[in-house]
Structures are given as C-alpha cells and as structure tokens.
C-alpha cells in the first residue's frame, strides 16, 4: 500500500523520539516514523534529544545540590 509522505512536522518527530526514550509507541505513529526517507531526520533529532536529556539530568543535579557559595 502506498503511504504518502505525511510531511511530519519537526514537533511530531520530537514527540515520537521522547516516546521512544520511554519505550512507548503506537502502531500507526510508528508507520509514519518509518516512512521512507524519515530515517535520517529521526537519527538527527534523537542525537539532539540525547544531548538534551544529559543536560536535563545535569540541571536536576545542580538543582538538588546545596547551593555552593
């Protein structure tokens, strides 16, 4: 069946990458993710999301630390 390229916006990808981080994804969303040429874009976004995740955890750490002088 021919899936026309739905031209997902960046936001849609970000949503699916965050869902992927947690490991939850629905069938149809996944079809859109893996439609043909989206693979490179997904990898790009997931790398960005990876760095963001590390920074988020670091931010939580600094928040948790007693404020050094």
């Amino acid at each position, binding site marked *: 069946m021919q899936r026309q390229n739905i031209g997902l916006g960046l936001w849609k990808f970000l949503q699916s990458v965050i*869902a*992927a*981080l*947690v*490991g*939850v*994804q*629905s*069938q149809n*969303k*996944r*079809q859109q993710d*893996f439609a043909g040429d989206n693979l490179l874009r997904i990898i790009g976004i*997931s790398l960005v999301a*990876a760095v963001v*995740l*590390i920074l988020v*955890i*670091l931010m*939580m*750490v*600094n928040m*948790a*630390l007693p404020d050094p002088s």
Partner: protein
Amino acid sequence: MTTTTAAHDDHGHHGPAKGIMRWILTTNHKDIGTMYLWFSFIMLLTGGVMALIIRAELFQPGMQLIEPEFFNQMTTMHGLIMVFGAIMPAFVGLANWMVPMMVGAPDMALPRMNNLSFWILPFAFGMLLLTLFSEAGAPNFGWTFYAPLSTTYAPSSVTYFIFGVHLMGISSIMGAINIVATILNMRAPGMTYMKMPLFVWTWFITAYLLIAVMPVLAGVVTMMLMDIHFGTSFFNAAGGGDPVLFQHLFWFFGHPEVYIMILPAFGIVSHIIPTFSRKPLFGYSSMVYATASIAFLSFIVWAHHMFTVGLPLVTELFFMYATMVIAIPTGVKVFNWVSTMFQGSLTFETPMLFAIAFVILFTIGGFSGLMLAIAPADFQYHDTYFVVAHFHYVLVPGALFAIIAGVYFWLPKWCGNYYDEFLGKLHFWLSFIGVNITFFPMHFIGLAGMPRRIPDYALQFADFNAVASVGAFIFGFSQLLFLYIVIKTIRSGKQATPEVWEGADGLEWTLPSPAPYHSFSEPPQVK
C-alpha cells in the same frame, strides 16, 4: 545438528562436505551456528566447574580445598569464561542460526568472515585457559581486572590474558558487522524494518552496541599491554597515569556489555511467550523503541559501578539519576510480556517454562539492580555478595535461561526432532530450584556484610554460604541432564512438523524441519 537429506527445493546445490573439513571450512550459517552453540556449552561447563570449585571452598569457613591465590584465579577465570565464552557465543550462535531464516536471507552477508569469527574463539580461550598451567598461574585480578592490580602487580600470564581479550573482541566485532550487514542488505522483499521479528531487532541493536564498545575494551587492554611492556603509564601514577581512568574506561565498555548480554535474551523471550500464549506480542513497537532506548541509556550510566571510588558529588548524582531512568524502559518490557500472556491461551512446554522463569527471576534481578542504583545505599551494597546475587540473577536465570529456552524452542527446527517433554520439564525444575537455592541466600549474606571475592569468611555468614554451595551443585549437575536431552533429541526424537509449535508464526517456521542446508535460496514472499 546434522541435517540429513537435502530438502526438495535444493536444486542441485552440493550438501555439506563430509568429515571434519565440513566444520573447519564451512561458510554455512547453520553449521557455524551449531559450532558456536557447542563451543559455548563446553565453555559453560568449564566455567561451571570453576564455579563449583569456588562454592566447594566457600561451603565452610576456613580454607579446606584450595589456596587463596588459586581461589582468586578461579573467580577471575569463572567470570571471563562465563561472560565471553558461554553467554556471548551462545547468543551469536542463536543469531547465526535464526537471523538469516527470520529475515528470509539465504545466509549471512559475509560467510567467510563468519567462519573466521568463530574459529578465533577456541584459540582465544585455549590461550586463556593454558595460563592455568603456567608457573605464574592464571589471571587473579577479577574479571574486571582493575589497575594497578592487573598491571604492576599482575602475574606474568597477564599478557596472554590481554591477547585473549583482543581475539575475543575481534571475533565479536566481526560477528556484529556480519549481522548488521545481513539485516541491512539481505532482508526478503516486503520484510520492512517494522515487520522484522523482535529477535532480529534486539540483535540488530546489540550488534551496534558491540561495534561501539568492543573496540573500547580492545583499547583498554592495549593500554594495559603498553603499561606492562612498553613503559607507558596510562594507569601508573608514577608516570603521570591514573588508576581511576582505568575504571572509567572499563565501565564505559562494561555497562553496554551487560546490555549486550541481556538484549538478545529479551528478543528470544519475546518470541516464545507470544507463541505459547497463542497471542501476538503486546506492544511490538514499544518493545523495539524500549530496546533502542535501553541501548542508548546504557552509554551514560557506567559510573554507577564506581559510586565508592570518590567521585565528586555532581558526578555521583548524575549517574544515580541516569541509572534510574534506565529502569523505565526495562519495566516497559516486563509489563509487555505479562500483557502478552494476559487473556492468551497458555500451554507450558519447556521453552515457555524457562521464559516465564526468565521474566520472574530477571525481574527480581532488576529490582536488586534498582536498589543498587540508590547511590547512598550502594555504599553498603558495593562489592558485597548482594551485588553478586544481583548480577547472577540477571545473568543465570536471565541470559542463560533465555538461551536454554531458545535452544528448546528452535531445536526441533534445527534437527527435525522433538525433545523429550518430560526430561525437558525435569531439567527446568532442577535448574529453577538450583538457581534460587544458590543465589537467593547471597542477597542475605551480602546485606549481612560479606565482601566479594574472598576465599574465607567470618562465622556469621556460614549457614547461608553452605545453602548456596548446595544449590550450586544442584544447578551445576542439572546442566549435564540438558546435554543428555540435546544429544538424545538429535539422535532419536519424534519427527517434528514444519510449524513445530501450534502458535508459532514467522518465516523460520515456513521452512521444513529440519531446516535444509541451504534455505531461502529464493527470497520468500512476505505478506
């Protein structure tokens, strides 16, 4: 797994060569898979004997059997042989057998390299095991071989250990490249990424983990080699090096390595549970995404093995939070398996029993892992038998039960005969009881304060150590029963049908049993 007659669709291809040359020169993924599996079973028994020596010595306080020096050699070799010799080659063997058939490929992408990556292993482990007979003795610095104990203070056999690890690493990298090339290029038409069976998906991600971290391990042992022989000082503070650098490098490889040893197990269990529940896998895409997420997160958690090394507070907190994040996708996988079983129509043949035991006992290992992630509590758990209990729960009823379940599940397809169901169940119950009697008390003696890797202990740990030792012998000898069952099945089991199991679906079950020497010469049609 001798395949007898060439199958009907085998138009004119030559069957396997005769005699020993068949196995040495083979480029057939089925033969190489068989060799990997037999090699890993021999290593399981070798490592198992060492475990029994350790447990026999620890049966009673006091030194009864062996000297502390030899005890340290046994713990080190037990760790190395089980991790690199039993678990990893078993998964590579299962991948060699099943991945080509599951994606509808005639063979692995690089058959000759496939042969080479197997035949390196016997020599790597030969060299490692021969150090036992050298005058300096085998490596005695633990399978994690921390510097400076493994560099300045090591026995002279450490160089053979280094070359052994080099060879194992090269073999694993070549195997991983082979699997990635096969999955990327040789899937049958119609078999899109999201139609690939989960075992193929988990191995695809494990292969990338292998390609990423095995070179780092090769780098670490090369740095050790240069420190010991060529006068550099990577880890020797005298020349400006740093022993803690070693621990960071080792565990940067180490944690992805422990996921390399469990992700394929997730794949196998995700095939078995749907088959015997007669129900499709619950949340297939969640499982794929969760595996990918676990693989990524495994790169940023390594220092939770080093909470007591004196990391700055900021680093310690970062790694505690990152380790906690990993618990979420792992939890998703366990919940998916249970939901697959929910409202299924269950039968309990041996593979299903092992798979259910995997889910329960691996989750207990996961819980103790979650407890270890709490950094302050880890100050009391670190390097005690609580950690030993944790990683044995995720490795023995975890990886090993999944491998055994995989063998019972696919054996009829490999050799064309059913295994003896009663013996299979007997093997399951002996292993299940043996594993729990051995490793559950270790939680207690660890919490009570017994450190790891000690040949003798204070009196308050005596009774649970005795229980654990008894369990070890029960579990150890029940694996000989497994050997008998496999041989009996190959020789004279009941003839298996192509589908083998009622609920089974996938390309591999469309092939006749036993699977022909050359399968899918013409790519199958994937609906």
